[in-house]
């Protein structure tokens, strides 16, 4: 799989680290909370779509920036890549 990094250009998957579901970030329970059911839901309950999925990747072996990527889980086609926090 090739990921088109907005800064580095198209790069091999081996340079990237997966950092999780991009749309699930807001659902994270308070880190100080110890409510097991809400943490269980956050960690394990996934929609697991067969299709487009928004996710965070880090270009750990390149520019080290975090990217928000929309990847099709069936075809691995990447339809959108943005660099959160980067100025337009």
């Amino acid at each position, binding site marked *: 799989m090739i990921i088109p990094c907005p800064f580095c250009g198209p790069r091999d998957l081996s340079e990237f680290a997966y950092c999780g579901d991009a749309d699930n970030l807001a659902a994270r329970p308070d880190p100080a909370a110890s409510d097991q059911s809400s943490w269980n839901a956050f960690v394990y309950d996934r929609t697991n779509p067969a299709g487009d999925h928004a996710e965070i990747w880090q270009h750990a072996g390149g*520019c080290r920036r975090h990217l928000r990527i929309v990847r099709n889980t069936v075809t691995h086609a990447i339809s959108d890549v943005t660099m959160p926090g980067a100025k337009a």
Partner: protein
Amino acid sequence: MAEPFVSTPVITDAAESPLAGHYEQGEFGNLDRGARVTLTERFALAICDVCAWPGSETKAANAIKRASGASVTKTKDAIAEDAQAFQHAPGRWSVVAQNPALPEALAKAVGENGTVVDLSHGRTVLRIDGRQSRRALSKLFPIDFRSDAFPLEKGLATRHHEIFAQIQRVGEDAFDIIVFRSYARAFWHALRKASEEVGYAVA
């Protein structure tokens, strides 16, 4: 402003290369058609990382130009006679120069527009040159080394498995590879192994 930290320049007479004992000059590998790449360690250089604060990228690039002579811009990497610089991440440049006073000059020039970290003691610069250099490098890095995809002066960050590397094209077929000093010996052996097929000379 706090005094910037600048480490002692590399003392060429006293410093020891991380490749000491493993840097054997000569020609090796498949020499049927001669040594088609040359490997060199570029020792005792000043190496710095410059990081611009958001919005100060142009000022930082100008500062690098003033301090090192390598005329980088926000979008262009550069090589000067005795210095080279490239942007390896947004607003972050690697600057390599022969002048041991580079870290101090950069710290002064960049001032409040960013940070300068002196990496002279922490990085090793290796050069591969020769018509088959792309063939050898392609075995190590998932990077497109063709001339049009990797133009002269361009630099980038990548990795060979877990060894981070920064690569800059410094000539028609010449590439400088910057690796962590502590991994330099391991990477040197990998580079030699990758070059065996095309025959290599250690200069």
